[in-house]
C-alpha cells in the first residue's frame, strides 16, 4: 500500500524538481567580478558554483572555485563545475572559449561591461533575468536609481580631484573612459585628469600644476604606495592643496572601480564633506 | 677542356686588385698561384670559382662564359676549398665529407658512402670518420674539408668530363708531412683522374715540388707564368716578394728548383 503511493509520488517529485531546474538555474558560473557582486546582491549567492579571479566581493565569493581570470578563463574548468548557466562579461574570453562553451551545450549569457549607470542597470536586469529573479532585479535597479538620484540632489563639491591607482611601483592617474572617472562624475567631483584617456603613469610635475584639492584612491593602491604618509610625501603630490590638508578618500578597490550595485555607497562616501582625513 | 680567366680587370673599394690578368687551368695540370700578401691571389681564385664577376674580361669553363652557368651545374664541375669556413658546428666527419656529394642527388646512399670512404682515405682522415668535427685539431679539420671537396670533384664523373679543383691555401695549418701529402695527392689526381687544379700557396718550394705550372702575382698583374723552373727565378721572386733570394737545383727532386730567401 505505502509502496505503491511512493511509486507514484517519487516520479512526481522528480518531475517537479527538474521543471524547477529548467526554470531557474541552480549551478551558475560567473565570469566577471561586477556580475558576481550583482548575483550576490540579488540574493543568489548560494546558486553560484564558480567564479573568475576578479570576483573578490562580497567575501563569500572568495570561497568559490576559481576558473582563471575572466579574460582567459579555462573552458574545461568551467565545464567541470557542471554549470547550467554561465554569466559572462562581454570582456570575458577569448571569444573562441565562449563559443566552445556554447558548442558544449552550455547556456551563456553575455552582459555589457561599460562603466555607466545605464550599463549597470542592464547588467542587473540581465543577471536577474537569467537567474529568474526579474522582480528582485527591478527592485534593485529601482533602489539604485532612487539612491543615486537622492545623492545627486545633495550639493556637489565639484572639488578638483586626483584619482590615483597604484598596482606596481608606479602610480597611475585615472582619466576619461575609466570606471573610476564614472564614479567621480556621479559623485559630483571634478577629475583633474579629464584631459587624458585611461590610466596613465602620473607625471608628478603636472600633478603639482593641476593642484588637486582631493585625492581619491583605493585600499590596494594605498598599500602599494606604502601608506598614506608615503603617498602624500611624494614630490609633486606633496605640494598640492589635497596633500597639505590631508584630504584623501580611500575606498575598497571594487567599490571604487567595479561600477557594481554598491555604486550609491561609493558615491555617498565620495560626497562626504571635505574634511581632514584621519 | 679548361677553366680560363682572360684579361681580367677588377677594382674593389676603389683599389685596383687585378689589372689585365690572364690565367687558366687545363685538365691534368696543377697550377700554383703565388704572390705576396694582398697581391690578389684569393681574388683570382674567387673569379675562377665564379664567386666574383670581373668588371672587364671573362672567365670561361670549357669555352662557356661562367656567368651563364647556374650554380648547381657549376658545382658538378668544380669544387672549391676556401680559406675561411664557418664556425665548427656539431657535425660528424662523415656528414661533412658527404656534403661533397650534395650536387649529385642522383647517387644512391651506397655510392655516396663509397666515394666518401675513398676521399677520406686519400685525405688520410679515414680513421676520424666517426668523430665529431669540432673535436678535431685545426689540421685535421682542414684535411676533412679537403676530403669534402675531393668527394665533390670525384663523385659521379662522366667519361670525358673535366673537373676542376680550386684550393685556397689548403696547407695553411698542416705539418710538413701532410703539406707534401696533400699536394702529392693533388698532383696524382691531376695526372690520373685528369683533374684541373689551381692552388694558392705561400710556400714557394712546395709549389716548386708539386705544381706543373706556376703563376706569380704582384701589383695586380702576373709577373711570370710557366713551369716552376721558368717562373722561380731570382728576378721574378725579388720583384714579387721584395726579399733577396738564391735559386738552387733541388737536391732530391731532379728538374725542380729550390728557393732560399736570405
Amino acid at each position, binding site marked *: 500500500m505505502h509502496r505503491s503511493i511512493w511509486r507514484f509520488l517519487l516520479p512526481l517529485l522528480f518531475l517537479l524538481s527538474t521543471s524547477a531546474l529548467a526554470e531557474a538555474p541552480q549551478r551558475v558560473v560567473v565570469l566577471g567580478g561586477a556580475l558576481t557582486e550583482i548575483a550576490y546582491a540579488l540574493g543568489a549567492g548560494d546558486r553560484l558554483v564558480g567564479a573568475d579571479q576578479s570576483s573578490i566581493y562580497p567575501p563569500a565569493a572568495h570561497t568559490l572555485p576559481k576558473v582563471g581570470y575572466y579574460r*582567459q578563463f579555462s573552458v574545461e*574548468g568551467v565545464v*567541470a563545475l557542471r554549470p547550467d548557466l554561465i554569466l559572462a562579461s562581454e570582456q570575458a574570453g577569448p571569444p573562441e572559449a565562449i563559443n566552445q562553451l556554447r558548442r558544449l551545450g552550455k547556456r551563456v549569457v553575455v552582459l555589457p561591461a561599460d562603466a555607466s549607470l545605464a550599463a549597470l542597470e542592464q547588467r542587473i536586469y540581465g543577471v536577474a533575468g537569467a537567474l529568474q529573479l526579474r522582480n528582485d532585479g527591478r527592485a534593485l535597479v529601482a533602489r539604485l536609481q532612487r539612491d543615486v538620484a537622492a545623492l545627486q540632489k545633495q550639493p556637489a563639491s565639484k572639488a578638483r580631484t586626483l584619482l590615483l591607482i597604484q598596482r606596481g611601483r608606479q602610480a597611475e592617474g585615472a582619466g576619461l573612459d575609466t570606471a573610476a572617472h564614472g564614479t567621480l562624475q556621479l559623485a559630483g567631483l571634478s577629475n583633474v585628469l579629464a584631459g587624458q584617456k585611461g590610466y596613465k603613469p602620473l607625471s608628478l610635475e603636472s600633478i603639482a600644476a593641476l593642484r588637486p584639492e582631493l585625492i581619491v584612491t583605493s585600499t590596494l593602491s594605498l598599500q602599494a604606495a606604502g601608506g598614506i604618509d608615503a603617498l602624500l610625501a611624494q614630490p609633486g603630490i606633496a605640494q598640492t592643496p589635497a596633500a597639505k590638508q590631508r584630504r584623501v578618500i580611500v575606498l575598497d578597490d571594487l567599490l571604487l572601480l567595479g561600477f557594481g550595485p554598491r555604486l550609491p555607497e561609493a558615491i555617498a562616501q565620495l560626497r562626504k564633506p571635505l574634511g581632514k582625513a584621519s | 677542356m679548361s677553366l680560363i680567366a682572360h684579361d681580367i680587370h677588377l677594382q674593389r673599394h676603389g683599389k685596383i686588385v687585378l689589372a689585365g690578368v690572364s690565367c687558366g687551368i687545363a685538365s691534368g695540370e696543377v697550377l700554383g698561384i703565388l704572390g705576396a700578401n694582398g697581391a690578389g691571389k684569393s681574388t683570382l681564385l674567387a673569379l675562377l670559382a665564379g664567386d666574383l664577376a670581373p668588371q672587364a674580361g671573362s672567365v670561361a669553363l670549357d669555352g662557356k662564359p661562367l656567368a651563364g652557368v647556374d650554380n648547381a651545374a657549376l658545382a658538378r664541375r668544380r669544387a672549391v676549398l*676556401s680559406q675561411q669556413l664557418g664556425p665548427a*658546428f656539431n657535425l660528424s666527419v662523415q656528414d661533412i665529407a658527404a656534403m661533397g656529394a650534395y650536387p649529385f642527388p642522383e647517387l644512391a646512399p651506397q655510392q655516396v658512402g663509397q666515394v666518401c670512404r675513398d676521399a677520406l682515405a686519400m685525405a688520410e682522415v679515414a680513421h676520424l670518420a666517426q668523430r665529431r668535427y669540432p673535436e678535431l685539431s685545426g689540421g685535421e679539420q682542414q684535411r676533412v674539408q679537403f676530403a669534402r671537396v675531393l668527394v665533390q670533384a670525384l663523385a659521379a664523373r662522366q667519361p670525358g668530363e673535366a673537373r676542376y679543383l680550386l684550393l685556397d691555401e689548403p696547407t695553411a695549418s698542416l705539418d710538413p708531412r701532410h703539406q707534401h701529402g696533400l699536394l702529392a695527392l693533388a698532383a696524382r689526381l691531376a695526372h690520373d683522374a685528369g683533374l684541373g687544379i689551381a692552388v694558392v700557396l705561400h710556400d714557394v718550394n712546395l709549389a716548386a715540388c708539386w705544381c706543373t705550372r706556376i703563376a706569380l702575382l704582384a701589383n695586380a698583374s702576373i709577373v711570370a707564368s710557366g713551369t716552376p723552373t721558368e717562373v722561380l727565378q731570382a728576378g721574378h721572386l725579388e720583384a714579387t716578394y721584395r726579399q733577396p733570394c738564391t735559386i738552387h737545383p733541388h737536391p732530391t727532386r731532379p728538374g725542380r728548383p729550390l728557393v732560399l730567401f736570405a
Partner: protein
Amino acid sequence: MPPPHAPETGHRPLRVLGLLAGLLLLLAFLSLSSGAVGIPLKALLQIAYGAIPSNHDDAQLWRSVLLDVRLPRVLFAMLAGIVLALAGALAQALFRNPLAEPGLVGITAGGALGAVTAIVLLGGGFLLVAPLAFAGSLLALAAAYHLGRHQPGVAGLLLAGIAVNALCASLIGLLTYLADDSQLRSITFWSMGSLANASWHELSLLGPWLLVLSLLALRYWRALNALLLGERAAGHLGFPVKALRRKLILLMALMVGPLVAATGGIGFVGLVAPHLVRMALGADHRLLLPTAALTGACALVAADWLARIVVMPAELPIGIVTGLVGGPFFIYLLLKGRGA
C-alpha cells in the same frame, strides 16, 4: 666529453625518432586523460574507440570535453611545437648561430605589433587580431629584409632585424601607453601566448597549411647543412645562396606568422628544441629537423598539459610555462656546455 657513438650509425636515427614519437603519444595521452573534468580511464578508452559509454549520466559531457575541447587543443599544441621548432632550426642554420630564432628578423615582434594595433586602435576581436598579427609579421620581415639587403651575408639582415625589433617594441610601448585598462589586459594575455583558441575550426584552417610547410621545411636539410659551412661554401656546393636565404626566410614567416597570430608569443620552444637536439645528436639536419620537430611537439604538449592542470580549474598562459620550465633548463644547458 665527446658524445657516445653507436657502432652502427644507420639505426640510431630511427631509434631516436621512434623513441620521441612514443614519448609524444604518451604525453598526448596524459594530456587527453587529465583536466578539470575527471573522465574515468575506461570511458576514455571507450570514447577513443568510437563508443559512447552509455551507462553514465556524464557520458555525453565526457565525450564533448574529450573530442571538442581537449583533442583539438592537444593536436594544436603538437602542430605549434613542430612549427616553432622547425622555424627555430631554420633560423639557427640560416644565421649560423645556435641561439638564433625566427624572432631575430622581426617576425614575432611584427606579429605582436599587428595584434596590439588591432587590440588598441581597432577594438580587438580575434577576427581582427589574427590577420593583423600575420600581416605584421610579414611586414616586419619584409622591412628587415629590404633594409638588410645592402650588406653582404646575413649580417645586414641581422642588424636590420635588431632595428625592426626595436622599432616594433617602441611602437608596442606607445600603443600600450595609449591603451585603456581592459586593452592592456588583452595585450598581456596575447603576449604571454595561449592555446585556448584551439578548436577544430582553427585546426582545419591552419593545420593543412602548417603541415605542408613543415614537410617542405624537412626537404631543405641538404641546404641547411651546407649553410653551416658558410654561405660561400654553400654556394660552391651548388646552392643559389641568395635565393635560398630568401626562400628560407619566407618559409619561416609563412610558418610562424599564422602561428603567432593564432597563439600569441610562445617563447623558448623554437630556441631550445633544435639546440637540445643539436647538442645530443649533432647538427646533421636530415636528423635534426624531424627530431627537433618531435621534441618541440613533446615540449608544447607537456607545457599545455601543465598549464591546464597546475592551477585547476583555472589555467596558466602557456608562454609562462614554457618560459618557467624552458628558461632555467636553457641556463643549465649553457652552464653545462661551458664546463665541458
